[in-house]
């Protein structure tokens, strides 16, 4: 067997890389969901000062390349703030922030999509702000948001591949290493691409299932 041949162990390597990509994707999505939703609620209640700060940060994150943000965190934090970050930490911070900014946009429009009249009804019956948010706004906003959110997450999964440039051993990085060793880019990148594809399909499928459940009240059977 020559050095440049594929070995069965390469599959394990690829799966390990996929595991790292998935772990990053899931963790940054969850963090992004919490932060992005919190930002949207701040904006919905027009919390003074905070709402403006949130809008400003979200604008910055949305309108600059993720790669640039990643470099700023990975090289900028140690250089200017003397905070050392590992590649994984830098990846988690950057991707969470980026997801949060886009989830914020979706969550804002989802919350605004809930009719004022129902909120008035809930107020009249004495529900508190928090009860209205939890029982009236959130379920409907979630049903509204799940479609665009699934689309965003499929995209964010691909975006995780950027972190390979700072040395995180994700699927793309593994693909890179295999490619350099075997010099068979077409085979390696096809395999890597297929793994991303299958994972993305899985995310979309899960989103679709979830959407059906959240939208039970608008059983729409087509024209």
């Amino acid at each position, binding site marked *: 067997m020559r050095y440049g041949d594929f070995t069965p162990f390469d599959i394990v390597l690829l799966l390990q890389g996929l595991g790292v990509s998935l772990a990053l994707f899931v963790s940054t999505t969850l963090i992004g969901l919490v932060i992005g939703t919190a930002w949207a609620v701040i904006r919905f209640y027009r919390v003074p000062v905070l709402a403006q700060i949130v809008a400003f940060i979200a604008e910055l994150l949305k309108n600059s390349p993720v790669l640039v943000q990643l470099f700023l965190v990975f090289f900028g934090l140690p250089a200017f703030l003397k905070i050392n970050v590992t590649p994984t930490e830098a990846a988690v911070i950057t991707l969470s922030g980026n997801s949060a900014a886009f989830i914020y946009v979706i969550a804002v429009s989802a919350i605004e999509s809930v*009719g004022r009249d*129902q909120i008035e*009804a809930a*107020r009249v*019956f004495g529900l508190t702000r928090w009860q209205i948010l939890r029982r*009236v706004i959130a379920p409907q906003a979630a049903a509204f948001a799940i479609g665009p959110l699934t689309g965003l997450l499929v995209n964010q999964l691909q975006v995780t591949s950027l972190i390979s440039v700072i040395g995180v051993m994700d699927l793309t990085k593994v693909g890179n290493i295999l490619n350099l060793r075997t010099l068979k880019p077409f085979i390696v990148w096809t395999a890597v691409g297929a793994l991303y594809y299958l994972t993305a399909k899985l995310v979309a499928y899960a989103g679709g299932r979830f959407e059906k459940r959240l939208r039970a009240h*608008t*059983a729409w059977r087509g024209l």
Partner: protein
Amino acid sequence: MISVSGVRKSFGAATVLNGVDLEIRQGEVVSVLGSSGSGKSTLIRCINGLEKIDAGKITVDNFDVSKPRELSEARKRSGTVFQLFNLYPHMTAVQNVALAPVEVLKVPRKQAEAEARELLKSVGLSDRADAYPSQLSGGQRQRVGICRALAMKPSYLLLDEVTSALDPEMTSEVLSILAKLAKGGTTMVFVTHEIEFARSISTRIAFLDKGTLIADLPTEEFFSDKGMALPRVAQFLSKMRKD
């Protein structure tokens, strides 16, 4: 008692309520009549605290609705039924009715839902109890809306043009329920365009014209010479009857 005294409310340059005084005692059914834009709905929205009044005072059982601390107590005593139903679309009829009892009155969910089913049964909706609002007709939705208000066991029912989005058939579904409630002694403030119906169930009629209460008379008197002596009322009644 609901007491409205010297209430003024304007939206920008438009004065909608211009010094309104009105008292509604336990057991009364007071219909508020008047042409569109006369301030009828705004009056209801001021009583349940959805609009802040610019001047005057509104109390529900002596709880001042303009004080945030007292507003929640005032709201517990009145139930509102809306013109466009305002149901929660993601909840079934039962869940719509049971939400406020569970969240505000802390009634156990099972009990609240059982009571909701009873209420829905009393308005002829026992077989639609688990349907979502989008699966109900307008008349059925409004009946759910009435049950939702009754579920809080309010002392006063505030009805804001509850039939004006419904066709005549559905209107009569809803009105027959209101007639039953009125007979049962429920106190109601009934903003409406259904003059004949108002006449049949009301103990008193209040007539709003451009934000001013120009008549507040017992039903008999309002529809007699005394009411007709007011030119604006006579004009309104003759127009409505022609339609």
